[in-house]
Each structure stands twice: as structure tokens, then as C-alpha cells.
């Protein structure tokens, strides 16, 4: 009875395409529509957060205070961090998952389409609320994206309450997204698609989704405790009432460190899809990739205190967290070796997605090395809270996560739009971004080692030269993202027709459906192609 019902429904669906007008986007339950919404939203946030970054770099172009006052500078660093982490990188990954996961596993849609709609539409409200704090009395949150108490509680501007609710909403959205992805991957795989045949992008996202479910509630918990301290007279983090400001850091980083991997694991997945395609060779060490991802995720729960080596942890604690952190280098190394081995004896071509993926491998590895250096506790006392740390995490997040997202976007754009990309413009975007990123962030290693603390609006004269270089690089990188916007719009509007298998070496179910992908795909479970059987 019910089987008949679904077939009827499915047949009905096949006949009608998307609804017309704004309603299509507001009420859509289609994974492709929602994926597009996520991606456009994250692109918008990327530009807003990017403008804030450029404001920061413009102020730091020269020593002295020129453009903004120190209070506003702190608001900029805080908002830049929050918007990039929660508004740009995470929604972009969810967008890619929405588009690609059902097509990769042969499912007709996400498992919970209505929840999918809801989890997207919370986000614009969350960020509207967050951004509106900029116009409030006392200004936006100014305590850094890590919002350490008591600077974010007793000493916070009144807008902190809006910030807390915005974080709650983002958290709910992420959790619903994660639940949806887990349900889709576990329950809607096409017949014959066993777990160890899943494309790596699905594997890394599955593990990321479990991380999200484990730590986003902890973030919600920590901001709730803040809320109670601020408004209801509790003393979780207030020493005067028997609380402890250091407790805040422990709880925050218990969320924060897995969060770092939430922002990089899907990137590993994207790169693991792209490199085999353009090397025309299967991914080397598929199984070890899966195990490495899982062990990174597990280890991420045991290393949080390496963010707080200077708070005064007993020797045994410092040693434990140092060793655990160093251990993460092993599975991460395995991943890099596997990518290199995939390229080795392949037949490589260098289209735009591949260029971004290769840059990812090199620059992420550089970020990994500085991460290893930061793990060494006695030396971390010198690096901690300097520009060396800023250089490190921007290397893993910008040419890491962001480059992977761009690689993914270029890789799958033909599938989404039905048009091939203008390669010349793609390459121009890549080279300007690549040069810009390195000019921006490489000198930060030097100024950090030379002793410049992070989050300062003005600096001593010996840091002036490299800061100027970094600011120039930031503007090169920032402005070249307009080319990306142009490329995406051009690709949506027209261009050379893309074939079903848009790239010569591409393997997987998503390349079996026509380009652009029809509004409904895999209404009937597909037969797996030769390569996956």
C-alpha cells in the first residue's frame, strides 16, 4: 500500500519542476535548491567577513591609528572570525553536502527535506541578528571569536545577549543539518553502495556530522552559562561567586578543537574527490583515508587544552596534551602521503579545480607544520597569541578550507549549471588567490616570531614592513575573489555545454546523471556504475 503511494508520489514529482517566484526558495524542500541557498548565503557571508578582514588589514597597513579606533578594531576581529567560521565556511560545506551527497549515494533527496528547509532558513535570521549588533549602543561583540570570560561576561557590551542568541540559532541550524546528513548517508544509499564504497566526501562529511552533534550542544551549553552569568546571577565563570574563568576556556575549547576539524574534514573529502579525477587514477589508500579521518576526529576530543598552555596547567597536564596533539600529525600525514601517492604515476592535467586542490595540499601541509610547532608546549609559550598563530590557522583555513570549497565549486559547477567554466578566468582567479594568500599570510609567521601579539590595532615599528606586505597581499586576495563571483555568475548564465561526465577522469554516481542535474535525480535507485561495483 505504502509502496504504491511513494511510487505515485515519485511519478508526480518527476513531472513538476521547481515552483515559480520567491516561494520556490522560501518553501523548497529540494536538496539542490537548498544546496544553492546555502552556497549563495555563504558566498555573501564570505564577502561581508572579507570586508571586515580588509578593514583590519587597512588599519594595520602602517603603525599608528589611522582608520578605526581600537574598540571598533576589536569588533572587526571578533565579527570577522565569527562570520567566517559560522557564516562562510560551515554553511558552504553544508551547501556542498546538500547538493552532492544525495547524488553521490544515489538518493532522491535528503532524508528529512522539510527539516532541511528549516535548518537553512534559520541562518539568515541568526546572522542578521549578529550583524545588527554593529549598530547597537556599545557596539558589536568585541571580545574575540573565542569570547573568553570575564571579558565576554562582566565586561561585555550589552549586545552580547544578541550574540548569544545568534550562536544558539547557528548551533540549531548546524545540528539539524548534521542530523539530516547522517540520516541520508546511513539510510538512503543506493542498493550495493556499501559503507566502504562511499565516496570520500560522504565519509568525511559523515564523520564531521557526528562531530557537530557531539560539540555544537557543548557550545550551546557554554553560551547558555554565559547568558545565566550575565542575566541570572549565576557564577559559572565569575571568580567572585566561586566560579572560574579558566573553566570557560576548557568548555569552549572542548567545543573549539573539534570545531577546527569540522572546518577541515569535508575539505579533505573534496580534495580526495578531485585529485583522482585529474590524475586519472583511483585514490590511493581509500581505507586508510577513512581510518585516518576517523582517528583525527577521535583525537580531536583529547587535545583541547593545547589552546591554553599558558593558563597554568600542571606539568603532567601539559605533557599529556602536548603528546596527544603531536599524535594528530600521524593520521594527517597519512592523508597527505595518500594524495601524493595518488598523483604519483598518474596522468595529470591541471584544470582550475585541480590547481586549487594542489594548492590545498601544499599550503595546508605548511599550516600543518606550523601546527606541529605549536603543539610543542615549551615553545608554544613563545608562539601563543602571536601572529604565528594567526599565520597558522589562516594557512589551514584559507588555502585549506576555503581553497577546498572553491575547488569543489569549480569541480561541480558544470554539474550544477550545465555549463563548463571559462578556464582562463578560472586560472586567473587561482593564480591571483594563490599569490595573494601567500603574500598575506606568509609574512605573519615572521612578525609572530619577532614578537607581535595578535588582536592589536597598532604595533611597534619593527613589525611595520611585514605588516605592509601582508596588507597588500590581503587586498590582492580580497579583490581577486570578485573574479570568483564573476566566474560563478558567468557559468550560471551560459558557456560551453557540459556533458554528463564533465571531467574526463571523473568517477561516481553524480557524473552518471545529465548536466545540469535534473530537478529530481535518482527517483528510482540507480544501478551502480562499473567503477563502483
Amino acid at each position, binding site marked *: 500500500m*505504502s*509502496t504504491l503511494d*511513494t511510487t505515485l508520489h515519485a511519478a508526480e514529482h518527476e513531472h513538476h519542476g521547481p515552483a515559480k517566484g520567491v516561494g520556490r526558495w522560501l518553501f523548497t524542500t529540494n536538496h539542490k535548491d537548498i544546496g544553492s541557498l546555502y552556497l549563495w548565503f555563504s558566498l555573501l557571508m564570505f564577502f561581508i567577513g572579507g570586508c571586515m578582514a580588509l578593514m583590519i588589514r587597512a588599519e594595520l597597513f602602517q603603525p599608528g591609528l589611522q582608520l578605526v579606533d581600537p574598540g571598533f578594531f576589536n569588533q572587526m576581529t571578533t565579527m570577522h572570525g565569527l562570520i567566517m567560521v559560522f557564516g562562510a565556511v560551515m554553511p558552504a560545506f553544508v551547501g556542498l553536502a546538500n547538493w552532492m551527497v544525495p547524488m553521490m549515494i544515489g538518493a532522491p533527496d535528503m*532524508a*528529512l527535506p522539510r527539516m532541511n528547509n528549516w535548518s537553512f532558513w534559520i541562518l539568515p535570521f541568526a546572522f542578521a541578528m549578529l550583524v545588527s549588533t554593529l549598530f547597537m549602543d556599545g557596539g558589536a561583540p568585541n571580545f574575540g571569536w573565542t569570547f573568553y570570560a570575564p571579558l565576554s561576561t562582566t565586561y561585555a557590551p550589552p549586545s552580547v545577549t544578541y550574540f548569544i542568541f545568534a550562536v544558539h540559532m547557528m548551533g540549531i541550524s548546524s*545540528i539539524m543539518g*548534521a*542530523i539530516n546528513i*547522517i*540520516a541520508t548517508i*546511513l*539510510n*538512503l544509499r543506493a542498493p550495493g553502495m556499501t559503507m566502504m564504497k562511499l565516496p570520500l566526501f560522504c565519509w568525511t562529511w559523515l564523520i564531521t556530522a557526528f562531530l557537530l*552533534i*557531539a*560539540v*555544537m*550542544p*557543548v*557550545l*550551546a*551549553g*557554554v553560551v*547558555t*552559562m554565559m547568558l545565566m552569568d550575565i542575566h541570572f546571577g549565576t557564577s*559559572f565563570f565569575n*571568580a*567572585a*561567586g*566561586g566560579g*572560574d574563568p*579558566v*573553566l570557560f576556556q*576548557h*568548555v569552549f575549547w*572542548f567545543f573549539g578543537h573539534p570545531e577546527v576539524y569540522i572546518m577541515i574534514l569535508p575539505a579533505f573529502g573534496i580534495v580526495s574527490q578531485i585529485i583522482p579525477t585529474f590524475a586519472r587514477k583511483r585514490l590511493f589508500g581509500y581505507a586508510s583515508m577513512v581510518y585516518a579521518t576517523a582517528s583525527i576526529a577521535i583525537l580531536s576530543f583529547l587535545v583541547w587544552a593545547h589552546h591554553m598552555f599558558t593558563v*597554568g*596547567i*600542571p606539568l*603532567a*597536564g601539559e605533557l599529556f596534551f602536548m603528546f596527544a596533539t603531536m599524535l594528530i600529525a600521524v593520521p594527517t600525514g597519512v592523508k597527505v602521503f595518500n594524495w601524493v601517492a595518488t598523483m604519483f604515476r598518474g596522468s595529470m592535467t591541471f584544470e582550475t579545480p585541480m590547481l586549487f586542490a594542489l594548492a590545498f595540499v601544499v599550503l595546508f601541509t605548511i599550516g600543518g607544520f606550523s601546527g606541529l610547532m605549536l603543539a610543542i608546549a615549551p615553545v608554544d609559550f613563545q608562539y601563543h597569541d602571536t601572529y604565528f598563530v594567526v599565520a597558522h590557522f589562516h594557512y589551514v583555513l584559507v588555502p585549506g578550507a576555503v581553497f577546498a570549497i572553491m575547488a569543489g565549486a569549480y569541480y561541480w559547477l558544470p554539474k550544477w549549471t550545465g555549463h563548463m567554466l571559462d578556464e582562463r578566468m578560472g586560472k586567473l582567479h587561482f593564480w591571483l588567490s594563490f599569490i595573494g594568500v601567500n603574500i598575506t599570510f606568509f609574512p605573519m609567521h615572521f612578525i609572530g616570531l619577532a614578537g607581535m601579539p595578535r588582536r592589536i590595532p597598532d604595533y611597534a615599528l619593527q613589525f611595520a614592513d611585514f605588516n605592509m606586505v601582508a596588507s597588500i597581499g590581503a587586498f590582492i586576495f580580497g579583490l581577486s575573489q570578485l573574479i570568483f563571483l564573476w566566474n560563478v555568475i558567468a557559468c550560471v548564465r551560459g558557456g560551453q555545454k557540459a556533458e554528463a561526465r564533465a571531467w574526463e577522469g571523473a568517477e561516481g554516481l553524480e557524473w552518471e546523471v545529465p548536466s545540469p542535474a535534473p530537478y529530481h535525480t535518482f527517483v528510482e535507485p540507480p544501478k551502480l556504475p562499473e567503477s563502483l561495483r
Partner: protein
Amino acid sequence: MSTQADNWRLVRRLILSCVLMFGFGFALVPLYDVFCEVTGLNGKITKTGPVALEGPDLSRQIKVRLIAVHNEGMPWEFGPIDGLIETHPGEMKQTAFHAANPTGRRMVAQAIPSVAPAEAAEYLHKVNCFCFEQQVLLAGESVEMPLLFVIDKQLPEHIRSLTLSYTLFDISPEVSVAEQAEKEQTL
């Protein structure tokens, strides 16, 4: 349809784990206290109240430094009567802090103790301390606040000096200027 049922079972489990993890976030607060007690992290003092003395260990001498810290907006005069105390493990020591309220209003304060090095915290046993309760001083009033402590004989050999700090926080109930004026009038 079985997929639908599977989905809901899975979703229920995942939502339950979210709720559990939210609870776990709060559970970290007491867990952290336990953790601090075991490792001495952060120098929180957990041992208080009466203690049975077994006679001091005269072979070891421990320097205890007492320091007083004012938290923001705390105008009280506040300091140890004796900044440096020599003691033996197992010996009961009595000392005091002096405090005075120089302002024209009644104020309530809470002193928060902390020990460095943190690993010594679990061996510092406070028999009686002014930090156990809130201190109330009227305008211009001053007081001597007693402190009675013992250092446990189990104190690791390599610790020969430790610091006990008290940070004084102003926890006077917020009184608006208007209310204050009204009160003064009725008096």
C-alpha cells in the same frame, strides 16, 4: 515504509545525543571541579574545616607567602598582617588579614583564595578562614579577619615555598543613587 521508520529512529537517537551533549556541557562544571581536586589545577582549595593534628614535621620548613589582591572597583584597604610565614608541615598556623572600608557606604566583599604552585593546593588545609563567608563593613569600619591553616605532611618534597593569595571582590548589592539618597533621608 521502512526507510521512513529508520529515519525517525535514527533522528530520535541523534536528537537524544544532542540533548545529552548539552547536558554534558553543564556536567563539565562539576567534572572540572573534581578534575581540579585531583590534579590541583588552578590552585583551588578544596580542603576546609577541622583537622586532626599529628604533630609537626620539624625536618621541613615551608615558606608561605600571603598576598592580597583587589579586584576592580574594590577600594578597601586589604592586606596580610604578616606577608611571609615560616611553618612546618603538620603545624597549625594562625594569622590574619586586615581590611578597612574607606568609602561612605556599607559594602559587602567576598575573598577568593588561590594557591601557587597549583599542585600545592590540595595540601593546604584551611581550618578557619575569612573567605568562608562574606565580609560586611560599614562606612569607615575596619576589621581583622582570622586565618587558620595547616599544611599537610604529604606535601611533595620539592615544594619548599608556596603562595596563598586572596582576591577581594566587591559584591555589594547594587543600589542606585536615587535609592541611596532616599535611604539617607529616612535615616
